[in-house]
């Protein structure tokens, strides 16, 4: 499965890129986070405290247990601060 992975705010800064594309068999968001964290220091650092990270699957707020079957786009970012 080919996934677009997006990063925002300080998650983007820690990862170093705003977006990357990944060929993966991850079944859930948690699987995906583990796969990304294993890649390098930057990813490992960005995902070191998941309580500080929010996730959206195909542009809908989701959680780490969410399945990725059929997903096209997963985004990671800090708690939102709009308004």
């Amino acid at each position, binding site marked *: 499965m080919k996934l677009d992975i997006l990063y*925002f*705010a*300080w998650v983007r800064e820690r990862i170093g890129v705003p977006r990357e594309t990944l060929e993966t068999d991850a079944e859930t968001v948690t699987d995906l986070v583990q796969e990304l964290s294993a890649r390098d220091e930057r990813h490992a650092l960005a995902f070191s405290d998941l309580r500080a990270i929010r996730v*959206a699957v195909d542009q809908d707020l989701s959680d780490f247990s969410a399945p990725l079957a059929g997903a096209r786009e997963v985004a990671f970012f*800090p*708690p*939102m*601060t*709009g*308004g």
Partner: protein
Amino acid sequence: MLAVPEIRVQHAPFDFATECAGFAAGRTDLGAVVTFCGIVRQDGAGQLQQMEIEHYPGMTERALQAIADEASARWALGACLVIHRYGVLTPGERIMMVATGAAHRADAFAAADFLMDYLKSRAPFWKRETTQHSTGWVAAKASDEAALQRW
């Protein structure tokens, strides 16, 4: 008098006066209009130089639409508008506004308050403040997340 929420996400400034004048203009079925406007606030020491707002194009519009649809479903709204800017803003600039129109004031007030609470914690915007000495992402407040429990 079903509301079809109008959502705008833009870098450009919006004209608050024009938006207020135009909102629900000519409608005689709405007895109450509430607006909220968020403004870049200077800190006590006067050191804020700029605020940069990052967002998630695509999801931002979807999230705002979903929040406005939810408000329209919960309260008897006849009109609903949300405008939110992104990019670099300076102190005193208007960041965003919401407007709600209803037959009665309780609906207009509750819907606007609800929109703000949800927009704050559920729409994908992130603020970064730059002062003379430092730059950093604004942390989400526990009180903002707690506010959602009101609804």
